[in-house]
């Protein structure tokens, strides 16, 4: 299991407006493309150098492709990264201010302390 790689996906998608839209519209395609092209990039290094060993576990891939933020929380993805990206993708579908954020909280309500470990 790689919490780091989950976070890397959320981090790199969240900072790119085109990728935010692409992940919203086509999650399976975007996750597969990302894993084959970006997952092993060392950010801030030039393209000639890359890692060779990073890939998602099936359960992680499934959580990302199904936009399952509850599962991402359970897997220990950084909650700030998940929240920020999912607000960007789905807040627009709700009429009331903060309605998406409140539903997000409600869907996590079965978690109690201690929450899943987010240390990477």
């Amino acid at each position, binding site marked *: 299991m790689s919490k780091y790689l989950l976070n890397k996906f959320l981090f790199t998608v969240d*900072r790119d407006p085109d990728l935010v839209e692409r992940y919203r519209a086509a999650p399976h395609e975007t996750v597969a493309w990302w894993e084959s092209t970006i997952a092993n990039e060392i950010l801030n290094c030039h393209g000639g150098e890359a890692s060779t060993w990073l890939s998602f576990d099936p359960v992680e891939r499934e959580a990302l492709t199904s936009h399952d933020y509850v599962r991402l929380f359970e897997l220990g993805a950084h909650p700030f990264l998940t929240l920020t990206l999912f607000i960007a993708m789905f807040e627009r579908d709700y009429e009331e201010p*903060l309605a998406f954020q409140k539903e997000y909280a409600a869907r996590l309500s079965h978690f109690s302390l201690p929450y899943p470990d987010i240390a990477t």
Partner: protein
Amino acid sequence: MATLAAVIASTHHPFYYKASTAPPEERPPFADEWVAKITAFRETLTRARADVLVMVGSDHFHQLWLDNMPQFLVGKAPFYDANWYNEEREFGLPRMLLRGHEELSSHILRGGLDEGFDLAFSNELRIDHSITCPIITLRPEADLPIVPIYTNIFAPPLPRPARFVELGHAIRRLIDTWPSDLRVAVIGTGHLSLELGGPRQFGPHGPDPEFDRKAVEWIASGDIERALAEVTLDSLWTPGNATHGFMDFMLMMGVAGEGAKADYADSLDLFHTMEAYFTWYPNGVPA
């Protein structure tokens, strides 16, 4: 030597900019009270007549990332661009450009290293809302040079609370011994109880009003001893999963000093978090 003109600790609420600048029909009901509180708080910095601002905050996974994560980092650059696409997107924050004060950055880096803090540095740092929010609230002209200091309150493993206090003490000593005739204000922002991306997020109040009440009391009375006795890396999960940002308040208590009662203290109970504002004048209240 330089004069420590003010020490200021605050929450940083990224929604303030939008709430305070929205047209009347879009202003949330709490905006007027919030603006009044911020305006009064701003006056505490204005009165200090600072020449340079040391700004303590925490990057929210913008430039600093898990492949190379510093615990404490000092910016040393002539300029700092500020705010990021996702802050523009979510909070409506404007792009900004702030001047740096490289001489004070060098002094803090050299002195901090010599005091035993292995500070990271950055010569090209784009800062985020943890630093721009207090610029917007306290110095909207954004005309004073800054020294940004980032702390890791975000990506475990984190330094312990005592280390934040000790760094605050060190920053205080370094400013007090800076050979300069400038007036320095240290401004740091953090959080009281806060939950983001968890089941207690975006409630009608902060997730733990009792923690907030105690925290405000510790800060206002400068009770570092009590704060350190009650706050640990483990305990901070309990008030809310983003409450480790309180350690930036503890750093600022370290700058102000043990037992230093705040000259100004105010708070505002908002949805999902409590706002809190403190100012100390270590060298006396300005006339």
